[in-house]
């Protein structure tokens, strides 16, 4: 199967500090990939490079569905195909939930308002918050806001969805509802790349788990490869630290 996302020699530096040391990674259509690893290992930076929220070295290459991700006229098009859910939701606070979900399809795809609305209500129902459609984000709980953010990303019918620690800013009792929504989504065949600290979710939902440390992919494999029989000492050390507490 041809890769939907292809990353070759991805290097990224903040000043003189190398965050990513030449990452190679292919992601197939429909695949759910979870990226785990300690803070500062470069996992968020990695997925932020896929839609060029972070720039990267010129010799690196990232392609989404065959289109090179780089600064320029084509970038907005690539971004329209790559949905993203942020740790801090980043909903538009001055718009209702419904408007949040309708905006991008109307502006980027030129979807007529009536159709955008119908689709948005559909998506909100899918993530279980259709009753909140006319509220403003500030009137919702964190878990509800994050589910709106997922609906907003889905409204563009992206080829791939990136999740950047989607549950890290949530109160513990809200984590479950967001993970449930993501789990349902994974079941529908959407391509997903999820940076997460939720090991249970990764084990249960991922087709492939990638462990990163120090700006490199240390180990990648099926959830049982990584969680049950990790080959690398660093993977074992990390899993010991996060699982035994």
């Amino acid at each position, binding site marked *: 199967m041809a890769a939907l996302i292809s990353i070759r020699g991805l290097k990224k530096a903040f000043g003189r500090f190398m965050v990513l040391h030449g990452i190679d990674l292919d992601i197939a259509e429909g695949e759910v990939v979870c990226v785990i690893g300690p803070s500062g290992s470069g996992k968020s930076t990695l997925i932020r490079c896929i*839609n060029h*929220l972070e720039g990267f070295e010129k010799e690196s290459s990232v392609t989404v569905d065959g289109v090179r991700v780089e600064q320029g006229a084509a970038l907005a098009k690539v*971004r329209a*195909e790559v949905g993203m859910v942020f740790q801090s939701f*980043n909903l*538009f606070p*001055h718009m209702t939930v419904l408007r949040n979900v309708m905006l*991008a399809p109307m*502006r*980027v795809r030129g979807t007529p308002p009536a159709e955008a609305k119908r689709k948005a209500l559909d998506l909100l129902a899918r993530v279980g918050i259709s009753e909140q459609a006319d509220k403003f984000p500030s009137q919702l709980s964190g878990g509800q806001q994050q589910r709106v953010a997922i609906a907003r990303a889905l409204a563009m019918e992206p080829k791939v969805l990136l999740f950047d620690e989607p549950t890290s800013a949530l109160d513990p009792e809200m984590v479950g509802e967001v993970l449930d929504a993501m789990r349902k989504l994974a079941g529908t065949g959407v391509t997903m790349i999820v940076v997460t600290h939720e090991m249970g979710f990764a084990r249960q939902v991922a087709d492939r788990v990638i462990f990163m440390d120090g700006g490199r992919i240390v180990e990648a494999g099926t959830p049982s490869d990584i969680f049950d029989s990790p080959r690398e000492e660093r993977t074992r050390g990390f899993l010991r630290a996060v699982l035994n507490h």
Partner: protein
Amino acid sequence: MNLINTFFNVKVLLDSLPQLLWGLAVTLQIGITSILCGLAGGLFLAVARLYSPPFCQFLIRTYVDVFRSIPLLVLLIVVYYALPFVGIRLSPFLSAVTSLSLVSAAYTAEIFRAGIEAIPHGQFEASAALGLSNRHTMVDVILPQAVRIVIPPLTNNCINVLKDTALASVVAMPDLLKQATQAQALAANPTPLIGAAIIYVMLLWPMVIVVGRLETIFSRGRR
């Protein structure tokens, strides 16, 4: 009774009232034109500064700094009395509007820049991730939020512009103040000046109140 006859002479006031109202009309013309030009110019400068190459950013910053430091009266005199020497001859009205707009644009640019910078970076990132163009990001996401933040300082600026229109009397513009001083000379009584002062207050006070209301309405839905 001397005080009242001198400063609050009803007959003099009524006689000069039509003249004062003509002046008010001129003041409003200068003020509103300058406010609109200043708003458009300032918004353009603020957004251009965000997206333009470094050299243009430097030019804009220089413009903003220079026009915020030059006294308006000096600028007005330069525009009206000095520019004709290089062949640019502006009418009193255009001189006043030009000077006021140039200065107001500089202040407005700073106000909008501060407002845009106050919007969390995540709003830009979320817009970019959705594939929104720079224009849509500004028009749909950033500016509606920034406007709420900048309404109070923007209003102060508008009020300042309206008050500064009084300087136009220096270039023989028959604005409210100029009409008042002429009426004062004619009647040999300063009551028209007091009348002008009252008109200025009556004009600006409601603006302050209306804007306070707007702020409350706009703050709906804020996080």
